[in-house]
């Protein structure tokens, strides 16, 4: 028993999901611990242990409570209902089915909490209003969905039809099928990183630096071992059996598993405690013989690039990790004589991914000398190679077994807990498990890069852009992580989705003593978009051209050359996106302006627009995916899909694509997802690449298997296939032919590989960095309270060119979720190391912050993509903040150049602008 569980262990009776249970534990044990660890009910999730996230919401005597804040002693004698108690006789409840059918569960880690809050509401209000749903579920945070589909799902419960949708004969691509992995998410049976571990696993806790920059020494550990018999081992840098360094890029393995004598950021891992759970969780940090020598930390890119700044990494002169550069035309000369020009400086801060599932998993040595690492990840193959590096094993000796991933957004593209677990398991020869606390997850893992951007742009009198000059410094924190990706991607995108003849973009990723900044939905492009979209509004204003029409004039179209000189041949649908927005734009702008002249003026309304483009996949680098689909002699058809689904839905999308390519329904396919022993490498779930790249590989694999079947049956390309009971029936118009799979000499296997065609960029950044780009435009309608400096969003209209919506429901989910994160970037989110390492000081949007969203899908097909599709994950987020800032400007005349526009900051700008 944990020593803080209160007094002595006693037996407490409570009713859980209708069954009387006796639990022997301390009275101050959290109800979450009782449910998960004593009763095995892991459907109740732990996201923060502080009552902030609501993932652990259960019903206590019929009312929703955070189980993490209920001591066992106060649950005794009462009735507890968890997500596992919602289904009846193995049948999902109407509420659970509604969540599933409406796409209300993406990653699924908040889903149990959402369901329980909704169950509380629906027990009292049969037909709730939107407001009642938002109020009742308002204590549960979701980072994936943007909440709208959750509201829809709850509203739909009273009228949900009974089950029994007949399988459709129509092509699967284009249908909004419910997720393949949805039922376990709504049932609470999906297994996340913290939900499974081998029996007898040791627990691991990292001891982390309280200083941003310091040297340290470790004293004698014997007294610690003597005091805590349950402490089996304290690991230090010297214990790392392989290379004590990992990182994303082959030449940038700069982050240690455990720091060796010096730390570069607050939260860096220094030691790992191994032992029984109670011991490792309760050893006070003061008892650990660490002696610190704090040094002055380098905070911010200005300090890091100052002449007298200390050098943080020996190889990086001036603390510049890397530079990016794109130049086209003669930008210096182009600014003179332009009809309109504008310039400015923009700043953004650290942004935290705030996935609701903190990092968790286990590592287990297997009898054949290999190592299995289980846990949440976006990049199993990259994890495999990093685990191999730090353990000294060969990559083939490591198996990455992804758990369900409770949100990623780029934050789980880096290894974080995996090297610690793997090293500990390798050193001890025993299984080792660990779960990051919320605070630890926030303090230790990567963030969105803070940026300082100086830029200017110029246009002709008719509104055509002439030149754009951009310099961006990106704070990459203590270690390289994905800094080079940001520095490389930004220059390609920094002139926006526009045709600009003269462009120069310089970017730098700069080391500091702050939290490492890595990958976060957009890789620097959202920060750049805030700057270029502000410049578009500036120029439109100066030339007295409507902001939307100004963008329409300049939109990249097929035949136009980008800043890297790439001529877009297909699928450049920005103008069509703007066309889709125009009616709403004009109506909402007029309405806002009318409101502003007819009211007291202390609340002002505005409408703004933001545009974006986003290259799908790696920047000017190879980026292949492979897929394998096997039709076994046992009659089973299985897609071996290495593209991990972190909630966005690729485990459903790949099936739809492969099924249509093969000519069988998705229901015929089973699936193995992201197991490095079984699935070929489908790259990482990032860069909006899975649908485009892995989807294409799934299509080719399906076509390959289909071709084999048609050859066996000697059938033509239009033949219809049917699979049942180990037999494939092939209908080619004539007599049906059959293939008895059991009679084949081997299983049939279709393979697909796709690497999007790109070229390296030359010294001026010219070339073809991406095979295709997503385009989008969004408008935001809002009101500004001039007295408070607060912003209330009324509506977002989003138009996205994604080539082809393979699954429109999942696409909408991505757009909703991206917009929610864009709202956070614009108005709420600013991570301050040491100060916002929790989900109450770090603000993410909740129900009331995400307005109604209207979506227009523009399907300008990409010939390279599967059935014309390209990516949507990141494009969804990028235009939102610029649209919001444009709307604030329309409402008040105030130009926001620092994100987030927190109320006190906006209020200060309003005062400066004379708004009292």
């Amino acid at each position, binding site marked *: 028993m944990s020593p803080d569980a*209160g007094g002595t262990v006693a037996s407490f009776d409570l009713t859980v999901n209708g069954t009387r249970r006796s639990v022997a534990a301390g009275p101050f044990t959290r109800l979450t611990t009782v449910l998960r660890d004593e009763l095995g009910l892991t459907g109740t999730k732990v996201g923060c242990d502080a009552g902030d996230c609501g993932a652990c919401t259960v019903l206590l005597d019929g009312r929703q409570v955070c189980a993490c804040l209920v001591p066992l002693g*106060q649950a005794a004698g009462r009735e507890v209902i968890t997500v596992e108690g919602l289904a009846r006789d193995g049948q999902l409840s109407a509420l659970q089915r509604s969540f599933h059918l409406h796409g209300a569960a993406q990653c699924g880690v908040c889903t149990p909490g959402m369901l329980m809050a909704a169950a509380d509401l629906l027990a009292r209000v049969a037909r709730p209003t939107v407001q009642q749903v938002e109020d009742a579920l308002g204590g549960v945070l979701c980072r994936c969905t943007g909440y709208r589909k959750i509201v829809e799902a709850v509203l739909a419960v009273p009228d949900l039809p009974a089950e029994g949708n007949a399988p459709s004969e129509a092509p699967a691509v284009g249908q909004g099928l419910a997720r393949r992995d949805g039922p376990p998410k709504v049932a609470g049976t999906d297994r996340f990183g913290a939900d499974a571990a081998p029996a007898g696993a040791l627990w691991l806790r990292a001891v982390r630096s309280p200083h941003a920059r310091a040297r340290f020494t470790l004293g004698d550990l014997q007294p610690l071992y003597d005091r805590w018999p349950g402490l089996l081992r304290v690991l230090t840098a010297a214990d790392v059996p392989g290379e004590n360094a990992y990182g994303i890029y082959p030449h940038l393995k700069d982050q240690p598993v455990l720091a060796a004598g010096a730390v570069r950021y607050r939260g860096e891992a220094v030691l790992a405690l191994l032992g029984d759970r109670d011991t490792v969780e309760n050893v006070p940090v003061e008892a650990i013989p660490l002696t610190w020598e704090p040094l002055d930390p380098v905070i911010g890119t200005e300090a890091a690039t100052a002449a007298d700044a200390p050098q943080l990494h020996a190889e990086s002169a001036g603390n510049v990790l890397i530079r990016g550069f794109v130049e086209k035309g003669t930008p210096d000369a182009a600014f003179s004589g332009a009809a309109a020009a504008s310039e400015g400086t923009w700043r953004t801060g650290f942004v935290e991914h705030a996935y609701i599932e903190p990092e968790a998993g286990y590592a287990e040595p297997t009898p054949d000398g290999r190592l299995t690492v289980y846990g949440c990840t976006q990049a199993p193959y990259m994890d495999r190679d990093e685990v191999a590096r730090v353990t000294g094993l060969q990559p083939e000796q490591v198996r990455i077994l992804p758990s369900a991933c409770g949100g990623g957004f780029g934050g789980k593209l880096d290894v974080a807990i995996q090297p610690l677990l793997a090293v500990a398991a390798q050193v001890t020869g025993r299984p080792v498990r660990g779960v990051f606390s919320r605070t630890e997850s926030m303090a230790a893992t990567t963030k969105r890069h803070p940026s300082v951007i100086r830029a200017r742009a110029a246009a002709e009198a008719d509104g055509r852009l002439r030149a754009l000059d951009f310099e961006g410094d990106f704070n990459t924190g203590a270690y390289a992580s994905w800094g080079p990706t940001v520095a490389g991607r930004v220059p390609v995108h920094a002139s926006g989705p526009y045709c600009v003849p003269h462009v120069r973009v310089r970017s730098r990723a700069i080391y500091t003593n702050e939290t490492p900044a890595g990958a976060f939905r957009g890789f620097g492009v959202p920060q750049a978009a805030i700057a270029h979209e502000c410049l578009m509004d500036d120029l439109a204003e100066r030339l007295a051209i409507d902001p939307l029409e100004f963008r329409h004039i300049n939109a990249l179209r097929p035949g136009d050359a980008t800043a890297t000189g790439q001529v877009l041949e297909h699928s450049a649908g920005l103008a069509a996106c703007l066309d889709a927005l125009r009616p709403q734009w004009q109506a909402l702008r007029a309405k806002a302006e009318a409101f502003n002249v007819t009211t007291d003026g202390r609340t002002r309304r505005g409408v703004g627009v933001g545009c974006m483009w986003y290259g799908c996949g790696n920047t000017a680098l190879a980026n292949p995916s492979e897929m394998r689909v096997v039709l076994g002699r046992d009659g089973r058809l299985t897609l071996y899909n290495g593209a991990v689904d972190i909630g966005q839905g690729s485990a459903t999308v790949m099936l739809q694509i492969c099924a249509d390519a093969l000519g069988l329904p998705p229901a015929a396919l089973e699936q193995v997802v992201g197991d490095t022993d079984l699935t070929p490498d489908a790259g990482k779930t990032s860069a909006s690449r899975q649908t485009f790249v892995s989807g294409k590989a799934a299509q080719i694999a399906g076509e390959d298997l289909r071709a084999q079947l048609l050859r066996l049956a000697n059938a033509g390309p239009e033949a219809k296939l049917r699979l049942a009971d180990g037999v494939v029936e092939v209908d080619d118009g004539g007599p049906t032919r059959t293939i008895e799979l059991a009679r084949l000499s081997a299983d049939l296997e279709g393979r697909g590989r796709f690497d999007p065609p790109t070229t390296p960029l030359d010294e001026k950044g010219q070339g073809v960095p991406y095979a295709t780009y997503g385009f989008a435009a969004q408008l935001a309608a809002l009101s500004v309270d001039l007295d408070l400096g607060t912003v209330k969003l009324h509506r977002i209209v989003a138009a996205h060119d994604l080539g082809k919506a393979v699954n429109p429901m999942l696409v909408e989910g991505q757009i909703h979720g991206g917009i929610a994160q864009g709202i956070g970037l614009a108005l709420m989110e600013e991570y301050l190391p040491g100060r916002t390492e929790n989900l109450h000081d770090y603000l993410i949007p909740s129900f009331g912050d995400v307005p109604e969203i209207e979506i227009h899908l523009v399907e300008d097909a990409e010939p390279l993509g599967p059935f014309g599709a390209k990516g949507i994950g990141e494009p969804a987020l990028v235009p939102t903040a610029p649209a919001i800032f444009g709307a604030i400007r329309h409402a008040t005349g105030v130009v926001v150049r620092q994100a987030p526009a927190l109320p006190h900051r906006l209020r200060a700008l309003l005062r400066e602008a004379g708004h009292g």
Partner: protein
Amino acid sequence: MYAFNYHRPNSLDAAAQALAANEDAKLLAGGQTMLPTMKQRLAMPSDLIDLSGIAELRGVCEDGDAVVVGAMTTHAEVAANEIVRSKIPALAKLADGIGDPQVRNRGTLGGSIANADPAADYPAAVVGLGATVKTNKREIAADDFFVGLFETALEPGELVVSVRFPVPEAAAYAKFDHPASRYAIVGVMVARTGGGVRVGITGAAPSAFRQTEMEQALAGNFAPDALDGISVSADGLNGDIHASAEYRAHLVGVMAKRAVIAARG
């Protein structure tokens, strides 16, 4: 190693005895603050006395021209209570705006005011409505109850039994809430009573306080315009990452006006 004793008395007397017997004891009400505080070792009492088994601490009743709320009554119960809703709707609305539904189903009036978090909502009601706090030993006037940051007039061995809220002629609570926790960055309870006007402010300073200049102005003219020209100093106000002291001072004026407008109906 940290361990403590857990008590769950079923009467007020037993609770008071347990409290008197253990100098380092702490009281557990709804646990929304105490549980995370103790799990983080920010409080390490020798004994924890759980008040949730004491029926007499729970419930709402009318007492003359006042409403009496038991210390262990949850925020959700106050928000839904018919007496509160009909007699002091501003109090019901305040309770309905505390935290989120999970907090409202567990958190209690007594726990809130005894903790005296500078950003809690209830202190604005206690001060703004001129309530009286009844303990196991005495009655404490609102003006004397909140002493400082997380500090009240409660003495060792003393526990809150109930709070008596006089029914005002008109009252309203307006708050600028923290977007995540829904704590008050600034919350203002304005109440007009037979005896004058009270303005109770929470969130702005280390503890809840009355804004007497506003009270005097509103006593003469219970209208938002009456507050024009009253400038609130930022001196001594809270400043943090969510709002500077200057911004809070500004919010006091704005939210007070909005409370007056709401109270006028």
